[in-house]
């Protein structure tokens, strides 16, 4: 039986700080209430001969006091928790991307260099990581108890988790959103290694094309390049260096080209039409799997100059591997 839970991420320490502070506050208040109840129950039991005169039926200052004091405490706790929570979402261009796809009943993980693992996630210690989470079927939830983090995988959209592992070791990975028969078996481990060990692990895996290279393949296989190639006769937006750019849309909105935008543009091409272009692109719903789409995104990403810190697999690298 274990009674404690390791804190293995930067987030975990902050969440635990809030948790145990609240445990202290609510514990003290609960004990105070229970002691008062017991004292009143004993002192004012019917057989006791005590002074019961002038029993109050209300007292406004007291009532206002115990309305406003909890309110103030609640607001402080709210502000603290919202601050910690906001930290989960701080964008970090230097974070190492890892792609996660949930599927009844396994987690498929893909690293930028193309290495894939199932129900295991290797991460380097101290490196900020950004998990991009998708699902191929129902809603799942990617739960890392020791990291104190959890994020649903939702059909039709990408969700993300950003954190830094702060402890080496093997930690739990579970599915926490009910997803059918083997929900309880859908899980595995997160293995946090020192950066050197992690690099060795990455290098020791059999040679596979990088995600971006696979994405370039898929880009041609599905016929995307037929229109989106700059030399094409069809008038379609050029996708080189698209990722992270601000895109102006037909209806006047602007949007930052992130993973979700690219995914939507593949599956729902009429949703965000780029200004100056005719919406002639067909949907690739049913043709492109979640894995294909992630590869294409990695390919489009690789055509931008990599931001500092991101593992470099630029377009050049991709084109060198390919014949």
């Amino acid at each position, binding site marked *: 039986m274990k009674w404690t839970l390791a804190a293995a991420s930067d987030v975990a320490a902050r969440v635990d700080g809030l948790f145990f502070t609240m445990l202290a506050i609510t514990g003290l208040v609960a004990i105070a209430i229970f002691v008062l109840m017991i004292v009143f129950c004993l002192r004012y039991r019917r057989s006791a001969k005590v002074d019961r*005169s002038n029993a109050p039926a*209300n007292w406004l200052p007291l009532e206002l006091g115990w309305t406003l004091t*909890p309110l103030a405490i*609640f607001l402080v706790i709210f502000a603290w928790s919202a601050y910690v929570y906001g930290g989960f979402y701080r964008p970090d261009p230097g974070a190492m991307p890892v792609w996660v796809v949930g599927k009844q009943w396994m987690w498929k993980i893909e690293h930028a260099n193309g290495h894939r693992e199932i129900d295991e996630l290797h991460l380097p210690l101290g490196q900020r990581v950004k998990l991009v989470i998708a699902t191929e079927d129902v809603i799942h939830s990617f*739960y890392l108890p020791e990291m104190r983090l959890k994020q649903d995988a939702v059909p039709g959209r990408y969700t993300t988790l950003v954190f830094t592992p702060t402890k080496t070791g093997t930690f739990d990975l579970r599915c926490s959103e009910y997803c*059918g028969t083997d929900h309880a078996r859908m899980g595995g481990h997160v293995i946090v290694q020192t950066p050197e060990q992690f690099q060795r692990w990455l290098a020791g895996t059999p040679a596979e094309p990088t995600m971006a290279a696979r994405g370039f393949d898929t880009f041609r296989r599905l016929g995307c390049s037929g229109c989106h190639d700059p030399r094409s006769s069809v008038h379609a937006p050029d996708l080189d260096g698209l990722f992270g750019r601000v895109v102006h849309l037909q209806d006047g909105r602007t949007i930052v080209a992130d993973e979700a935008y690219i995914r939507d543009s593949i599956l729902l091409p009429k949703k965000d039409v780029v200004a100056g272009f005719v919406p002639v692109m067909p949907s690739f719903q049913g043709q492109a799997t979640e894995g294909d789409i992630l590869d294409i995104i990695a390919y489009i990403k690789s055509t931008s100059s990599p931001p500092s810190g991101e593992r470099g697999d630029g377009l050049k690298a991709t084109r060198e591997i390919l014949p």
Partner: protein
Amino acid sequence: MSAIAATGRPSFLEEGFSLSSWLFTRDHKRIAILYAITITAFFFVGGAAAAMMRLNLMNPQGTLVTADTYNKLFTVHGVVMVWFFLIPSIPATLGNFLIPLMIGAREVAFPRLNILSWYIYLLGGVFVIYTLIAGGVDTGWTFYTPFSTLFSNTHVVEAVMGVFIVGFSSILTGLNFIVTVHRMRAPGMTWFRMPLFVWANYATAIIMVLATPVLAMTLVLLSLERILHVGIFDPALGGDPLLFQHLFWFYSHPAVYIMVLPAMGVVSEIITCFARKRIFGYRFMCYAILGIAGFGFLVWGHHMFVSGQSMYAGMVFSMLSFMVAVPSAIKVFNWTATLYKGSIVFTAPMLYALGFVGLFTIGGMTGLYLAAVALDVHLTDTYFVIAHFHYIMVGGSVMAYLGGIHYWWPKITGRMYNEAWGRMAAIVIFVGFNLTFFPQYILGYLGMPRRYHEYPPEFQVLNLFSSAGAAVLAVGYLLPLVYLGWSLFKGPRAGPNPWDARGLEWKTSSPPPKDNFTAVPAVDPVPYAYNPEVPPA
């Protein structure tokens, strides 16, 4: 015979003995008893499912039932306990029986709708029983899409129809209560002379009428998508699965208050009676009831902090969830302060009520952890959530329901129950409850997700505690069936007011006659005019 002595007329129980005199009754008191019998049956159906789950979880491999069976067990437990026990529990039984009596009315506003609502409940129940016999449903009581629309191979539509239908029963009950409270109060029964039980059921009725139709629409949309593939929640058809969650929780969070507000009403009546003291801060209690009912509509998004809704939505729903905790805290403080300078006697109903306050305090405070969005990310969908809402709904609502059944038992049946047995059952339930659910808080913090048919071996010790507690709890719940059943036939006769309690329901005979009162009763100028210095009559 006290019944005859007080009013000179036969009690509502003696108005007819045939089956049809019950099945076609329009008497709110008889309808309350029909409801009590049916919800008790469903309580034991839901309880049996829980017992099998706890047996299965005694070992980490979950060898008693298969994973699919386990998934069906927790689904039926949730569906039956939420819609067929907790939601109708206090309003449809005690509320139906007492609201007209407490406001000095002869009936509810729409007696025919009242019996119709019971038949609608039964029809919904038939669908659920059919679902069970046909092979069950495995979506969880939350029916999340796309699992329920595209992936589950079980009887989803039948179960959803059952819930859809039973919703109309609660809409009609709510409508009836609202009109009854507005239009049928006896002369002199002003709003701030009404018992808190009536206030609580009135607020509940408003929630029922406003929220339940949203559930009905949501379930129809779900069925349309499952049967006809109309794209509403499925992204491949242009829908959005989060839309389902928003609609579902827009009903199902207020539904939590449908389940707990009436319980608060019951507890307020019991504590003030057995402390022989006016309830402390009556007006704040009324405002707190309305505050909980109002804020309760604005917090549904706290069920979706990790669902992929925006960060800002998470923060707003977090803050609003803290707001709804304020009136709940006020009520706990007021109950505690009511004990001060009281003249307290520990009858069975009082033990249930005191147990309620303790368990509701723990359940409410752990709710703060889940409202704190950063903590919820870790705790949501774990056993911490299971423990939290069982403290509110079982430790809270079920304790209060049983307390209320004991408190008004003499009024309803005209007979006293055995006090020693009553106290013992209350204590057994309190101990069993804590043994079952407290370990689940720890399991949740340690990271055990809910709805797991099997689990890592390191969680076994706490699960064994929990299963042992469930066995104690089962004994506690069976005890009242025995001694209350015995009391029905052999219990000593109760007078009109065995507790020397205030309130109009005690000013008529026990059990009351068909039309409740022989003459319009006189209303006390202040509610709960108890004096701790004067011993009860």
